[in-house]
């Protein structure tokens, strides 16, 4: 069975993929459909949804177009989710690979270090980091990456530990390949499928984290994000429900879609495991 056929067997994953593609389309089309900055005041404030042409989702407390904010926000959410997950992988994969491959003292030290980071409450650390580095896309990406790499390191370590004594690794050692080559060319390619599954779930968590940070006012002041929109509308929830409702639905759908896709990838990449379950 082909990879996509296995993926599509999971109907939830297929729905997730469609939602995700729609959100990606939103992000790409945002500058075309709403070329103006989403921060610009374009109408009178507190315009309810569907009350005027061109403002299907109404306007916010400052007369900004909610639909424009929503579409531009899709881009920011996806970008921060993807980049911070990549950075987390760049930290977690090497640490886990070294710990799992070499074992012994190096493993002990690296794992204590990982445990330390796992003990610290994620969200609180992210808040402190962004507050101190000053809110910007870079600081948010760094903060999210710094709190989300430990599970990667643990997963990669476990994979490396189970693979390091396999015959093909022994063979590579016998022909004189260096440790670096063995790690990068022999073992790492065989650990990719669980890493890909974990990464897709991490993008979802990163998007949730980003929205929570910008909800608290720690978003980049130059980019429109869903969390910011909800945070700014928090105090006017009684007058204007639509200001917090729509961005929240957008976050929910994106995170849900990524989780569904992650489950589908898991089924497609580890067919044996999922059949046993």
């Amino acid at each position, binding site marked *: 069975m082909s990879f996509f056929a296995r993926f599509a067997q999971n109907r939830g994953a297929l729905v997730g993929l469609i939602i995700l593609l729609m959100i990606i389309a939103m992000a790409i089309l945002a500058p075309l459909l709403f070329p103006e900055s989403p921060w610009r005041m374009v109408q009178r404030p507190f315009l309810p949804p569907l009350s005027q042409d061109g403002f299907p989702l109404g306007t916010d407390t400052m007369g900004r177009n909610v639909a424009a904010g929503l579409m531009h926000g899709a881009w920011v959410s996806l970008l921060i989710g993807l980049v911070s997950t990549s950075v987390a992988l760049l930290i977690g994969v090497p640490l886990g690979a070294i710990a799992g491959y070499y074992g012994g003292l190096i493993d002990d030290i690296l794992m204590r270090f990982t445990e330390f980071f796992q*003990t*610290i409450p994620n969200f*609180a650390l992210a808040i*402190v980091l962004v507050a*101190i580095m000053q809110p910007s896309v870079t600081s948010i990406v760094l903060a999210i990456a710094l709190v989300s790499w430990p599970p990667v390191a643990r997963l990669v370590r476990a994979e490396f530990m189970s693979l390091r004594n396999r015959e093909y690794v022994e063979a590579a050692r016998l022909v004189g390949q260096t440790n670096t080559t063995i790690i990068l060319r022999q073992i790492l390619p065989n650990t990719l499928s669980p890493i890909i599954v974990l990464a897709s779930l991490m993008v979802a968590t990163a998007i*949730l984290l980003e929205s929570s940070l910008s909800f608290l006012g720690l978003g980049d002041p130059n980019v429109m994000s869903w969390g910011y929109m*909800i945070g700014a509308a*928090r105090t006017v929830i009684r007058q204007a429900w639509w200001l917090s409702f729509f961005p*929240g639905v957008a976050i929910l759908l994106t995170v*849900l879609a990524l989780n569904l896709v992650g489950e589908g990838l898991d089924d497609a990449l580890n067919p044996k495991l999922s059949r046993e379950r």
Partner: protein
Amino acid sequence: MLYARLIIMRLFKAVIVLFLIVILNFLLIQLAPGDPAAILAGEAGAADQEFLNQLRERFGLDQPMYVQLWRYVSGIAMLDFGYSYRLGVPVFDLIMARLPATLLLTGTAFLISLVLGIIAGSMAAARVKKPSGSIIMALALVFYATPLFWVALMSVLVFSVYLDWLPAYGFYTVGAGYTGFALVLDVAKHLILPATTLALFFMAIYTRMTRTSMLDAAQQDYVKTARAKGLKPGIIQRRHVLRNALLPIITLAGLQAGQMVGGAILTETVFAWPGIGRLMFEALQQRDYNLLLGIFFFSAALVIVFNIITDLVYRLADPRIKGAS
């Protein structure tokens, strides 16, 4: 005897972790933007050089780095977290005043999420491959994907604004002058929305964990034996499967409970719940870094306490585990 040694070991480890967090905190303070003395002086409205120097001396900012680090670490060892730059009140006092509200909120949310999560998870495990089981898991996935602060806001919209059943914010009705049982009832009413919305996300996690754990336990030989003996499925599920499935749940529940402190920051912000989460939000808005780092330290300490407690509960629940670690 063994128990005492275990507790001592765990406490020793906890002290090391807390010490590392203190050092991390100190490094973060150094990274914080702006000269603290200038900030303080700015607040006081005067910024001539002499006044700045006075402030530096008073807060020890003129000392070399290692002296400052020593002062900071030894201060925290004696529960001195310094002053809130903005409020001029000791950070420790501020946190202590807010801690009970947070413990009440997270404790209630923890119980709700654990009980409902285990019930929902075992129902889903018993109905595996049936539509009703899939519906439970789909709901769990939706709750897992919903931003906490958004659920909180939407529940305010529905239950406070439209239905007017429950208060939207605060800890108790200000000015009502309730005492005794009436006050308890009033606080409980204010607690329902924040605790439930905080619990939803964790309930989703516990539901998934319980289901997986129960399905694993159902594969064991003793379950086959029980079935062969002709026990009723309900009894097998409760006595044989669930009991054994609970053990891994306790461990993971302890780890997740720590994250609840983080979730409380969002819930408390939405509901104006006077806990340390709300305090953190206020510190954020005023860029009160010293207070912020104090709260950060405390939330990490809470996580460690939670973990030690679950570790002990785990050992009580499973007498087979005797060795250390």
